[in-house]
């Protein structure tokens, strides 16, 4: 029996290998996007993210290395195993050259491991966890748009500067939330502030009133919201209802323009937040916003702009090198400066973090907002080093070597 199986395996295996080789060698260059397309984060990139990738593909003419560019997309449903296995499948069967990762740090950490094993460049964009370029860094991952360190350095520093010294956190109970809370706690304690307490709410909680009551009872001055997407919207909405926004300063450690749009300025006004990009920064960003708006009927989020930028930079690099060899591409990306609509003079550190300008914003009041999507005023512009530090993360094995 065993012998028979071995013989069958010997017959079948070479056929399978031959088959994948034929497909991998393929006559197309394949780019993948694995993101939350249906859950709490689906408005952050979602369909708009796919559209941003398509815009970049169109901008390089739709072909590279003389082959058409094909974009694949999949919904990871916020489950790390689904994200990782889809990535593996595309790498093995579809000859994937590059992957863009959407929301959810937990999923992105799982996908980074696949990137290292399969040697496929991986741009983590929607995920915030700083460990992606720390303990979980790999030779093939790039953390492109923002990370928890930069968010904490932005929002927490500005609020501490205004006298908000005692903090209470409502944290999303998974990798992203805890990393964000840790980063913010570091900033708070380093600047002479105190953290009075924190509560971890399960991802997808709709009723935050219990947690808000605990925050109120703590007597803290600042309500730190270490969550995102609809978790963030629901917690801020609750804070308004229970009158916390009158007695505490709400700090959005991560908010996207899609969240502000859905909350409306009436609820979100006065809120501080940190962002990598805003559609109304300058002529170039407004132009991009207009193009995106024509397709999606909403202004792009910072990560949708980063989706466009990452795809564009990757394809341009492949064009310059006349090769999509992962090692050559990674080396070239880490050498070059990144200049496009997303950022100016951005660069990729040894640990894989793309260092670039970040903005601390305050949400306008309904009276201050003059036209649709006129939501933010710039409070502070942070250089990439100010946001993320001078050096690579020492916990990243690539840096230690």
């Amino acid at each position, binding site marked *: 029996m065993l012998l028979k199986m071995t013989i069958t395996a010997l017959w079948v295996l070479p056929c399978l290998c031959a088959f994948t080789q034929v497909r991998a060698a393929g006559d197309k260059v394949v780019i993948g996007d694995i993101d939350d397309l249906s*859950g709490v984060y689906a*408005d952050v990139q979602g369909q708009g993210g796919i559209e941003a990738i398509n815009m970049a593909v169109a901008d390089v003419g739709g072909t590279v290395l003389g082959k058409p560019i094909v974009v694949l997309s999949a919904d990871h449903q916020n489950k790390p195993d689904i994200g990782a296995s889809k990535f593996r499948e595309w790498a093995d069967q579809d000859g994937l050259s590059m992957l863009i990762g959407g929301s959810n740090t937990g999923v992105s950490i799982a996908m980074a491991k696949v990137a290292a094993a399969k040697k496929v460049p991986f741009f983590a964009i929607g995920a915030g966890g700083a460990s992606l370029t720390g303990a979980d860094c790999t030779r093939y991952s790039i953390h492109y748009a923002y990370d928890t360190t930069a968010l904490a350095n932005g929002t927490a520093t500005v609020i501490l500067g205004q006298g908000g010294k005692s903090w209470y956190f409502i944290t999303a109970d998974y990798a992203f939330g805890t990393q964000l809370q840790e980063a913010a706690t570091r900033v708070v304690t380093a600047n002479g502030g105190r953290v009075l307490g924190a509560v971890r*709410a*399960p991802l997808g909680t709709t009723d935050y009133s219990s947690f808000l009551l605990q925050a*109120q009872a703590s007597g803290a001055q600042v309500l730190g919201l270490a969550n995102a997407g*609809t978790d963030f919207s629901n917690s801020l*909405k609750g804070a308004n*209802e229970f009158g916390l926004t009158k007695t505490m300063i709400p700090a959005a450690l991560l908010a996207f323009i899609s969240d502000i749009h*859905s909350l409306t300025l*009436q609820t979100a006004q006065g809120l501080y937040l940190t962002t990598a990009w805003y559609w109304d920064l300058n002529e170039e960003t407004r132009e991009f916003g207009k193009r995106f708006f024509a397709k999606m009927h909403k202004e792009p989020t910072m990560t949708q702009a980063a989706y466009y930028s990452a795809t564009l930079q990757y394809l341009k690099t492949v064009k310059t090198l006349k090769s999509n060899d992962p090692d050559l591409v990674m080396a070239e990306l880490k050498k070059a400066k990144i200049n496009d609509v997303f950022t100016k003079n951005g660069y990729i550190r040894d640990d894989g973090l793309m260092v670039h300008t970040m903005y601390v914003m305050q949400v306008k009041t309904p009276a201050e907002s003059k036209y649709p999507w006129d939501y933010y005023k710039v409070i502070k512009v942070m250089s990439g080093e100010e946001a993320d530090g001078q050096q690579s993360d020492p916990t990243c094995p690539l840096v230690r070597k």
Partner: protein
Amino acid sequence: MNTVFGVPLAAILGQLTLGLVNGSFYALLSLGLAVIFGLLGVVNFAHGAFYMLGAFAAYIGLQTFGVNYWCALLLAPLTVGFLGVIIERLFLRHLYRLDPLYGLLLTFGIALIAEGIMRGAYGASGNSYPVPDVLRGGFNLGFMVLPIYRAWVVLASLTVCGMTWLLIERTRLGAMLRAATENARLVQAFGINVPLMVMITYGAGVALAALAGVLAAPVTQVQPMMGSSLVIVVFAVVVIGGMGSIFGAIVSGLVLGLIEGLTKVVYPEASNIVVFVIMAVVLIWRPAGLFGKE
């Protein structure tokens, strides 16, 4: 400060109050589920979707037609209930003779389609529905400030639960409904139009879910997924109360809301599983649920 087991009394009272608010939602939703299961034998997995559609009906009504909250309380359940009637007539009706699993699969599919359509049309992050002006502000209870709107939710849902219970247990119509579930053919032989009664019952159960949705709209973001997380908890509530027991659904909804509130003080991470732990314990001890009949 007064404490109980090391937890400040004010915190416990506060969480119990909020537990009562959540319990009211659970009671209202599980009531609809229990009515539908008790009278039709259908496990209505689309209940969360109808709750969501109720909230969206209120939102769309306000945005597009300027229908205010009070009218929405009446119109949204009517509209969504009518949708339920159509679904019953077109699809569900054909499945009564089959294994209950088919009804479950059908309603689950309907829920996915409804969520997908609303996500496509309104996005995942949802929309804000303002609290009506009369119900803004809060009562100071000493240990917490209770928003007036939340108090209204408790009052409204308890009233509706009580009226539904009276309707089914104490009126002639209710008696006919209960008789039809015991022996449909016999009741039909008395000249009562059973299929019509079943259709109205499903519509009414769906309307209750939509009413809960309208009540929830000013409290949470109106978004496509708002029902899918809730419906699973509500199912657990119905199972704990005893499938089909209307009184059981109302009581266990309120009690579980309170227990969940207490969990949020003691160990918040467990707040979303405590209901299921209780369900497991109840099922071991009383497989038919607390108020169910074998």
